[in-house]
């Protein structure tokens, strides 16, 4: 490879003697987009953090244009022309766009004062190059996810990066925004920029990348031009086995019964307007729409995490009054949060402690007749039995039930989160992005759990930004836009196009015009 712009050879990395990367090679030419894929825990992010100077390899070497280099800090990697855009953006939200672009490398005037004008002008130039009209003096907090991403890219350009590493850049973007990002990536590529693109979304890899590198369990699996690989091959190489049918067969819900959940005219000022829908026993109802359309807000309002200004919630025909989340849980509604680390699980708690966190009241031995009071003691052996039940049911892979959740992979954490939501034995489960950030095989298992739950009579709401998931799993799909229900799709009208039309408002405009 004479054109080797960047090369990593024999990279190994261990964290406190646990190997996470074993003997990885990677090479990259100028003006090339390389996709890196693998299940959670395959080592993609670690490999990229080594390139970005955040981690140091235990052994192996990095060469840039034939020269051996060593990045001990992110600043060193940056001056070596490498910019890493992490999944959670690295922007200070209370500062302006231009402050962030020049953060850590501010331009100074003669007296050591910041030369704000020059920085603003340069930022405006960079943003214009990227084809956006974000104001350099706008505060980051006021920007959308897509705009923040552009600011990150502008920051990379300001440092004259030659290699851009993007970790899951599209999880927070709408499909329209993804197209804009791809167009931009192709332009950067033509200018000679190399890009490493990490994603779970194989279609995107296929669409944008020249070559793809597949990792599994910290090991190199294969590296090929994307043109020579089908999506199915990528998926099975990642998982290490052939993937059978991803979605379980749909079973019909039980019709003509009292709806398990009925929501009437739910409104929350500034967020939701007149949301009404009903959910049959054993039905899987999908919620589609763009990020910010109000889907999570519906779930949070039902759970008592937000106050409704108006509207009614009926559970099996009985009005449900929720003032606190506890009320909803007691009535038989459970919520699987979209933000696993932020609001789903406690990484410092053991598997068992997480599983029984919501249902803990039912493990109190009633000493004086009262349950859930201060001095009722917990029946820890029953807690363990429950946890072990879910471990077998969901195939949770953990060193032990006492292992803290920080030692588990994302997919296994998600299964624990699911067990936690189910241990209250809900009649209605609201699963918000149940497969976000988990690998293909764990996804498949999640789908099966949800289908089995529905089969056993539990009604499920599945909020998802992945259209295939909505189509494959749900009986009907509610599409939301701007805090309202834009349409309910079922049967023949349940297609990806229809969901997109309703989510973006094209359908309504067509009707009006």
């Amino acid at each position: 490879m004479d054109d080797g712009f960047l090369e990593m050879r024999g990279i190994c990395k261990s964290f406190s003697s646990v190997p996470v990367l074993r003997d990885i090679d990677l090479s990259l030419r100028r003006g090339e987009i390389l996709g890196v894929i693998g299940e959670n825990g395959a080592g993609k992010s670690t490999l990229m953090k080594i390139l970005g100077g955040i981690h140091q390899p235990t052994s192996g070497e990095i060469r840039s244009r034939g020269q051996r280099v060593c990045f001990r800090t992110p600043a060193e990697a940056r001056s070596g022309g490498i910019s890493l855009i992490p999944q959670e953006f690295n922007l200070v939200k209370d500062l302006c766009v231009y402050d962030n672009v020049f953060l850590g490398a501010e331009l100074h005037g003669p007296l050591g004062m910041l030369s704000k004008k020059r920085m603003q002008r340069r930022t405006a130039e960079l943003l214009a190059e990227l084809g956006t009209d974000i104001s350099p003096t706008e505060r980051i907090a006021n920007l959308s996810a897509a705009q923040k991403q552009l600011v990150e890219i502008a920051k990379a350009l300001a440092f004259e990066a030659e290699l851009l590493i993007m970790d899951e850049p599209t999880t927070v973007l709408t499909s329209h925004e993804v197209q804009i990002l791809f167009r931009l990536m192709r332009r950067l590529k033509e200018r000679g920029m190399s890009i490493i693109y990490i994603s779970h979304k194989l279609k995107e890899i296929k669409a944008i990348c020249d070559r793809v590198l597949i990792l599994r369990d910290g090991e190199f699996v294969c590296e090929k031009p994307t043109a020579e690989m089908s999506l199915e091959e990528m998926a099975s190489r990642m998982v290490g086995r052939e993937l059978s049918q991803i979605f379980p067969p749909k079973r019909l819900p039980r019709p003509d019964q009292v709806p398990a959940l009925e929501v009437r005219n739910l409104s929350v000022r500034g967020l939701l307007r007149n949301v009404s829908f009903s959910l049959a026993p054993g039905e899987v109802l999908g919620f589609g729409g763009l990020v910010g359309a109000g889907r999570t807000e519906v779930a949070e309002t039902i759970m008592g995490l937000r106050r409704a200004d108006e509207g009614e919630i009926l559970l099996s025909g009985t009005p449900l009054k929720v003032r606190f989340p506890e009320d909803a849980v007691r009535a038989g509604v459970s919520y699987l949060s979209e933000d696993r680390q932020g609001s789903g699980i406690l990484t410092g708690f053991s598997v068992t402690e997480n599983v029984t966190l919501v249902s803990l009241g039912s493990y109190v031995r009633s000493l004086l007749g009262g349950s859930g009071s201060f001095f009722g003691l917990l029946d820890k052996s029953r807690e363990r039995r429950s946890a072990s039940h879910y471990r077998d049911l969901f195939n949770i892979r953990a060193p032990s039930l006492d292992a803290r959740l920080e030692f588990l992979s994302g997919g296994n954490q998600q299964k624990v989160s699911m067990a936690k939501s189910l241990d209250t034995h809900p009649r209605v489960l609201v699963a918000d992005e149940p497969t976000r950030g988990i690998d293909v095989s764990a996804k498949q298992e999640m789908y099966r759990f949800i289908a089995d739950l529905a089969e056993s009579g539990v009604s499920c709401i599945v909020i998802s930004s992945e259209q295939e998931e909505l189509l494959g799993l749900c009986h009907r799909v509610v599409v939301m836009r701007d805090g309202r229900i834009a349409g309910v799709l079922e049967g023949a009208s349940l297609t990806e196009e229809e969901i997109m039309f309703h989510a973006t408002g094209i359908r309504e405009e067509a009707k009006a015009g």
Partner: protein
Amino acid sequence: MNDGTRQNPPQDASENRIQRLKRIELQRYAPLFALLLLGTISALLSPYFLQVQNLVNIFRQVSYTGIIALGMTLVIISGGIDLSVGSAAAFVGALAILTVNTPAVQAFGAGTAVFLACVVAVGAGFFAGAVNGLLITKGRIAPFIVTLGTMALFRSLTLYMGNAGEFSSRNALFGDFAAGSFLLLPVPVWVFLILAALLNILLNDTKYGRHLCAVGGNEKVALYSAIDVDRIRFFAYAINGAMVGISSALLASRFNAVSSSNTGLGFELDAIAAVIIGGTAMTGGRGTVWGTVVGAVTLGVINNMLNMVGISPYLQGTVKGLVIIAAVYIQRQKN
């Protein structure tokens, strides 16, 4: 690399994980090892150290702030802090002595008067803690600020009530009830150990204790898990207040008096130090009651050692400060 594929021998990652877990177990007992090491050094420095009377003295000395440290453990696990414990101890102690001196109370007889004074101390302590708890949960003010404010407030009220002087009890029995011993150990030590056992159960074996760790670990997760976060945090401060009340009653009894300017001075430092040395995370979410007991005893042993080798008592604060900083630094390294 003709077909672009390579095979590597599989390696057992789970074994390494287990080793890692074992190391964490060892870290848990670090405070105990530190105490044993310190004890050994002290014993080598002075033959007097291991005498029963000296050890009993150390335990009695640490029991007053130790009891407060037990409550402080709950507060710190919840992700908060309480700086007002020293001032509250003076305030509550003053109220107890005022109660026992009230003629109407004394009319019930000396024993009943002492009992009522103790009830007042614990009740007023609980109330003082509840005030902190309410301001923090309902008022949404940072614990550091609230308790900094009440720290000034309780001290000032005590100074005002006592005209900056002493509250002396006029009931001889009040000065006796905590001076006695039972099976070799002084009463305050028994109280300390029994409360430690109770709070240990509260923390490890009840729904409240589990929820407390959840709230301190990640408040949002706790909220989404249908936990009444405000109630959990409120009771952490209220229980801590009750502990202050118990400690204060014992302390007031020991001197049969409370000084409005000196009683409880610096207690917050000792209590927080004991909790931190005991391995409870300053960031909240996890901690142990027995660790706090070890931490409190460690502080006592350090003081005792410094006394024995003749280091100025004025320098004890320096040592204490360094130990706290070192303990937090070691916690950092662990993570």
